[in-house]
């Protein structure tokens, strides 16, 4: 279907060379800075730094970028508008809130754009001892998502062949979509059951300690990447304090 939904191997971009664990840690570092304050300067610095990484994740085409981030931008924009209209945050405060949302979500966009889900699962199981049952199980489930999207179309057409269709009535439309979703869910559960059987048939439930064929290595550049993220967070906070805008969320007793 659409490119944003394809969950196959990620393209080889510069950011792919950073271990997914390092990317997650870096995201945690900047998120902590973002969550600690309510001002607009801190998130502005963080978002600027994150935007600099877009080319490294291969996200240079504005159309691709928009396709991947429009729900995020829409959400952030709505939040800002709501805060201006209903809240007492003021224009600058609302901008800060929107920037924080973008700053928190962009690392996820970067990770998805540059990282093969298999590599992420490898890194999580190798370095952070994630249970393979969860990590590999999620991978298997992820493979089924694009299939669901294709099946949604088919089931919708199939309903019309039975004389069932919503027309222009929004209530009927919602009920129809709910019905289709249920049909898909039933199918997905059945397929997942068969997939689990096939996985166990290849020894997934053998109880033997699983090895990892690809491995996952943490290199110097991964440490540098995390250090860089910590530096960005520090610069953001410092700038904010120096500019006199620093507004900590938790004011110490």
């Amino acid at each position: 279907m659409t490119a944003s939904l394809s969950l196959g191997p990620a393209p080889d971009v510069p950011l792919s060379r950073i271990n997914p664990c390092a990317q997650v840690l870096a995201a945690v570092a900047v998120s902590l800075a973002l969550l600690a304050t309510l001002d607009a300067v801190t998130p502005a610095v963080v978002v600027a730094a994150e935007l600099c990484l877009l080319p490294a994740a291969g996200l240079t085409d504005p159309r691709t970028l928009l396709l991947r981030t429009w729900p995020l931008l829409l959400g952030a924009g709505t939040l800002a508008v709501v805060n201006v209209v209903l809240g007492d945050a003021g224009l600058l405060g609302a901008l800060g809130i929107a920037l924080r949302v973008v700053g928190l979500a962009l690392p996820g966009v970067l990770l998805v754009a540059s990282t093969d889900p298999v590599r992420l699962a490898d890194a999580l199981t190798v370095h952070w001892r994630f249970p393979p049952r969860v990590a590999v199980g999620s991978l298997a489930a992820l493979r089924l998502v694009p299939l669901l999207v294709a099946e949604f179309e088919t089931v919708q057409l199939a309903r019309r062949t039975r004389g069932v269709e919503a027309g222009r009535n929004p209530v009927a439309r919602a009920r129809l979509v709910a019905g289709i979703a249920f049909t898909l869910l039933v199918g997905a559960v059945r397929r997942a059951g068969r997939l689990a059987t096939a996985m166990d048939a290849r020894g997934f439930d053998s109880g033997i300690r699983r090895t990892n064929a690809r491995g996952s290595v943490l290199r110097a550049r991964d440490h540098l990447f995390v250090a860089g993220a910590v530096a960005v967070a520090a610069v953001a906070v410092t700038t904010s304090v120096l500019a006199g805008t620093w507004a900590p969320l938790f004011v110490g007793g």
Partner: protein
Amino acid sequence: MLVTGASGAGKSTLFAALAGLLDPEAAEVTGELAVDGEPPAAARDRLGLLMQDPDAQLVMTRAGDDVAFGLENAGLPPEVIWPRVDDALAAVGWRYGRDRPTQALSGGEKQRLVLAGALARRPGLLLLDEPTAQLDPAGAAVVREAVARVVVARGTTLLVVDHDAAPWLPLVDRVVEVREGGLVEHPPGWAPVPRAAGLVLPAATAGPARLGAEQAGFTYRGTTTPALRPTSLQLHASTVTAVTGPNGTGKSTLALLLAGLRAPTTGAVRAAPELAVRGERRPHRWRAGDLVTRIGTVFQQPEHQFLTGRLRDELELGPLRSGSGSATARARAEELLERLGLAPFADANPFTLSGGQQRRLSVATALATAPAVLVLDEPTFGQDAATWRELVTLLAEQRAAGCAVAAVTHDRDLVDVLADAEVGL
């Protein structure tokens, strides 16, 4: 060895038992079953499985990673895993690299990869459960070619379970048929009776045109290559038109256009004036309730079309939706249940039926509104000989009753026996 037999004879249960997949709490097991002298569940390390649905067997996003999956589970170190992955890929005749994304593969190639994944674990016994049932003839040929390589190259015992015996015969030494009352072993040189043998179908004389495509083509939004090049054809009353051709030529897309489910992006699909709804002759503009009384459609996968929890309700749905009274709808449902031999299951859930029964039910639901045109996508796909004959007879009866039937199909036998006209894409 090949295990064959009609749908519902117990082949798949036998397969599940051999593979150690029967849930001991849900099944009542009598007798004894052994793999290398052990119960199958304990001998699972020595079994390799290949089942029907390729998408329910692949785990990873890249081909090599998927083959490695079973070896990782066995706790082997990476330096042992990768040579064995390459080995297994070579054994099945894999033509791409390890990095090939699995989602870009055709059904046949996916099954080839699943087979490599099973082989990599070096099983003593390969169990195949209708591995080509969801594939078109080209995909099925890919799988059989891969299996043939494996059997020649290794001393693996092969057990195939399939109702369609003929294509496997060159690969197997023994053929066993599951019948009611037990197993029958066929002598060497045995071949199944051709499914079309002795079939006598009611004849019909072609009537006026009911539905036509005039240079109808279709291109998906956001793509440049058309899914269907401009195509013209006429469906006449009391005829069966077969739409044939290799994969990717737009056969199923043409079926969607004829069925009024999609609007052609070039050209037009028009019904005969007597079928028009308030002057509108283009089926895709009709309301669903009007559509079902004019054009009946049967999809490749019956489950996609089921909407209710009982067979009886399923058959009443179309008539009710198109404005029939409940008494008429009930009478129509009873009649169809009786005629298609589904009366004993009238209160059963459609999802609990066997594949062949589901297929008959999905045709019956389309017939419930007595449409003038019937559009079917691969109606004989994955059907055993008995269901095949029932289905062909049912379609011939509809033709004799004046229905204009269009069938998209890869099935040569169906075209030979039933089609009055063939449109090759």
